[in-house]
């Protein structure tokens, strides 16, 4: 019989115990996979959320995969259509405009969260967007409430203060832009001729959309849509914009000072704040309204998304628990992401927090979050329907005709015909 020294036996016992403990913890450590598209914005908020969750769950980790937005949406659609679930994430971020398309095209692909989350604490319009047949599928995330972000320092050189930009119409903005161009030689707006952002902002500010609540096409017989196209034509003819191609060129344009302003959603804050040396040089004004349209207000929405859990998620229960405990109840978390990323959450109790009332140094001490919160309350609600992409595509296809001063009635008729044809 071999005799081992006591010391050796003891160290062997300790070694075996630690190996078994290690394997046990390794076995229970789980990784949540999340897909989203903006490392500065939604990716960063997810990382922040998980760092809070990790305090109580030290063994679990998160992997946030960033894709180009359009590429991610198409990748998700392709994979859901193929029926294979391998490689799909646990949590995916889906923009509100497209939510109904995914939910209706791929029934059963997403996990209903109706019984898991108390939806009365969230803004009703966000809950509605993710509901099909009485079941809600999302953890509502941010609102895309719009504002006109502008370089306060440059506009001041031309003699314009924040008060001059308060509650103006698009025509007034064109006049300001032309004046600034004369005095400083700088272009006001970057406009991507392949993007439909401006149209969406203008339409929703008047409470209208390509489709009505029942999904019927409301383009040709919609006088507001006519005015939207005319306004766009006037903006382009006003000589206050410069063409940019693609997202990178667009964001690069105003962050580098090549252009001075852009009307866009509150989520652009993260991109703007990624240049800390510009602190104090920016301001936010209410988004302009259409002067000739009664129902148009100085508040609109661009984007806004929510987190969805896939039915095939390998870490489904962990993912839902994570979403519930941080996104569904942590008020402090929402203050954090508001100030750092400009993520205006739609969790109602979070709106009482101090960050929502505070002013922001970066925007010259303006109470921007209070402003956004107020505008959020004024956004006219619209039903996006399931054919937003097709309608956008039809409008974008007519942009050269609009730019070259074409007849708006004919253009509206062409868009209407194309949308009807595509949505049959």
């Amino acid at each position, binding site marked *: 019989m071999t005799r081992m020294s006591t010391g050796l036996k003891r160290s062997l016992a300790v070694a075996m115990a630690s190996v078994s403990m290690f394997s046990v913890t390794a076995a229970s450590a789980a990784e949540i996979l999340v897909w989203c598209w903006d490392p500065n914005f939604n990716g960063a908020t997810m990382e922040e959320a998980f760092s809070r969750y990790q305090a109580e769950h030290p063994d679990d980790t998160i992997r946030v995969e960033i894709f180009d937005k*359009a590429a991610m*949406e*198409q990748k998700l*659609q*392709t994979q859901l*259509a193929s029926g294979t679930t391998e490689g799909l994430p646990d949590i995916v971020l889906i923009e509100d405009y497209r939510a109904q*398309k995914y939910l*209706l*095209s*791929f029934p059963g692909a997403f996990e209903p969260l109706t019984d898991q989350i108390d939806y009365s604490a969230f803004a009703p319009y966000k809950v509605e967007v993710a509901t099909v047949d009485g079941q809600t599928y999302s953890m509502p995330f941010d609102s895309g409430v719009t504002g006109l972000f502008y370089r306060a320092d440059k506009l001041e050189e031309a003699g314009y203060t924040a008060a001059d930009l308060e509650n103006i119409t698009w025509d007034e903005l064109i006049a300001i832009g032309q004046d600034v161009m004369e005095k400083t030689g700088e272009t006001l707006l970057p406009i*991507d*001729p*392949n993007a439909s952002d401006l149209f969406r902002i203008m339409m929703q500010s008047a409470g209208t959309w390509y489709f009505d609540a029942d999904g019927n096409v409301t383009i040709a017989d919609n006088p507001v849509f006519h005015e939207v196209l005319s306004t766009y034509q006037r903006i382009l003819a006003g000589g206050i914009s*410069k*063409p*940019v*191609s*693609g997202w990178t*060129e667009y964001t690069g344009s105003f962050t580098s000072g090549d252009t001075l302003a852009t009307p866009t959603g509150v989520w652009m804050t993260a991109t703007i704040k990624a240049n800390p040396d510009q602190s104090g040089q920016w301001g936010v004004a209410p988004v302009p309204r259409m002067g000739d349209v009664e129902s148009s207000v100085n508040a609109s929405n661009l984007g806004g998304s929510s987190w969805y859990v896939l039915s095939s998620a390998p870490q489904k229960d962990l993912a839902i628990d994570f979403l519930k405990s941080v996104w569904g109840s942590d008020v402090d978390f929402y203050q954090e992401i508001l100030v750092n990323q400009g993520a205006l959450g739609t969790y109602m109790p979070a709106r009482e927090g101090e960050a929502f009332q505070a002013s922001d140094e970066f925007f010259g001490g303006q109470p921007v979050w209070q402003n956004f919160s107020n505008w959020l309350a004024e956004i006219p609600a619209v039903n996006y329907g*399931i*054919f937003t*992409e*097709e309608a956008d*595509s*039809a409008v*974008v*296809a*007519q*942009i*050269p005709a609009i730019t070259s001063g074409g007849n708006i009635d004919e253009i509206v008729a*062409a868009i209407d*015909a*194309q949308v009807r*044809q*595509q*949505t*049959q």
Partner: protein
Amino acid sequence: MGVCVAQSGLARKEQVSGWLFVMPALVLLGIFMIYPILWSLWMSFQVGRGMSFSFGGFANIIRLTQDPVFLRALTNTLVFLAIQVPIMLVLALLFASALNDSKLWGRSFFRTAIFLPCVTSLVAYSVIFKSMFAGDGIINQVLLGLHIVSEPIAWLADPFWAKFVVVSAITWRWTGYNMIFYLAAMQNIDRSIYEAARIDGVPTWARFWYITVPMLKPVILFTAVISTIGTLQLFDEPNLLTQGGPSDSTLTLSMYIYNLSFRFMPSFGYAATVSYVIVVLVAILSYIQFLVARDRRA
């Protein structure tokens, strides 16, 4: 009689073993190529959104005729075909003819340099082309610096120039590929024919036009058919450079199929119909090209 039976028995055995050898490849081909082709033909008669299909007869074909986006995509694809393929093949032929000269200095360098674009990564070169043709990209800077234009051209934001960028990108990429085919075929042309022509006093351009080109006819036909098929199915360059271009001006048929399946509310049946349009176009154009190139018997 006995010999005949023995021979036919042997022949049958050889036939059987021949088929057995070919069978695995045929089975795989059938499953992964023939079956999907037949399935998509059946799909093209289905209508419906997402995953819910129902038989629609000729509804998709009727929809084709009324679809403005389809007509736009078809026009763009045919424009690319008519402009890009002849330019590329003529360039490839000229390069091959120039580089066939054994006394040219730096021949192998030029051959490698012209062929290298085809082996570069598609995404890498598209990103570089995009940045080159951006508003403040190098092309605009050069043009402004040489005072050829007074303000930067919005290459990717203008419907006409976007097509130009796509055509340049494709030509840059694939000219070398076709040039290699022509070079290889030219090696097989007997030098003595050229010598005889030179002695007879035939000028260089006539040597090229009356000797080189006719002798390369089979290869030219091959590259023409391959390039036609490739351009009709064009997807990569417009997708990466312009995403269908400002307002669908560089939208091709393949991109439209992609949009119908993976971007818009999915209509897989209609997408299958559009893909069959490409098949029909390829068949017609290839047939025409074979017809034009056939040997005419006196």
